[in-house]
């Protein structure tokens, strides 16, 4: 059950981050962070289909994370999702057309290995 929850978290978290990134790139850069601007931002994003799909995916991930946190220590629960670093980097290149240089690949791979070690 523990690893099934980890798989659900990895897949839904990856989908959520990719949808959210696509949605925010279409929204444009957020420049202002006062309460009025943040309210305006939230209302605007509530009509963004990518953000709605992203939040829905992250809600599934959050629900699975709450279940995992109730049966596993936090220092296992969070790092166990390390695979999402590489999966998201692959999708960032393919789906979001980001320029993932050699340096970024090595960095992301080291991060995934390091995070996996945190789960041991």
């Amino acid at each position, binding site marked *: *059950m523990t690893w099934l929850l980890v798989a659900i978290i990895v897949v839904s978290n990856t989908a959520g*981050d990719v949808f*959210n*990134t696509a949605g*925010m*790139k*279409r*929204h*444009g*850069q*957020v*420049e202002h*962070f006062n309460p009025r*601007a*943040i309210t305006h*931002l939230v209302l605007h*994003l509530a009509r963004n289909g990518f*953000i709605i799909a992203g*939040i829905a995916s*992250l809600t599934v991930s*959050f*629900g699975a994370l*709450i*279940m995992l*946190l*109730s*049966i596993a*220590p*936090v*220092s296992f*629960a*969070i*790092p166990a999702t390390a695979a*999402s*670093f590489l999966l*998201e*980097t692959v999708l*960032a*290149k393919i789906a*979001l*057309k*980001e*320029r*993932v*240089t050699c*340096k*970024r690949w*090595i*960095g*992301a*791979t*080291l*991060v995934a*290995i*390091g*995070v*996996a*070690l*945190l789960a*041991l």
Partner: protein
Amino acid sequence: MSNGPTHHTARLKTRVLMVAVIVGNVAGNTLLSRGLHHGGSRLSSSFLHYLHGVADPWAMGGVLILMAWMIANLSLLSRADLSYALPVTGSVSFMLIALAGHFFLSEPVSLAHWIGIAIITVGVVLVIETPPLTVAVHGPPEDER
């Protein structure tokens, strides 16, 4: 790309957002975990069991912080690549969560954890040396939305 004050301010905003995302992630998840463990550790098929767990004041504080984290994270993703932001914010959060788990929840930090933390640090330094944004941002200027 210009290296003038505007570019410097934009880069500074991106860095500040990264710090906010990291701090929000660590604080939110640590409070949430503390709240959920108040009621004892067990897996339940009942949604009400988890709803009751989230109603704990610690967990409630965690959820509120994670809502602010979500806004900061979306703002960051409007200004930086996912493949740039995620390895940095995600992994530094994991390192701090492992350390917070050790210092505040008495969870052990083994040798493997310390090696993991060292490898993550090298990875983060490599990623942070790459340009933050490599794709076009299509949205109109904020004032025209």
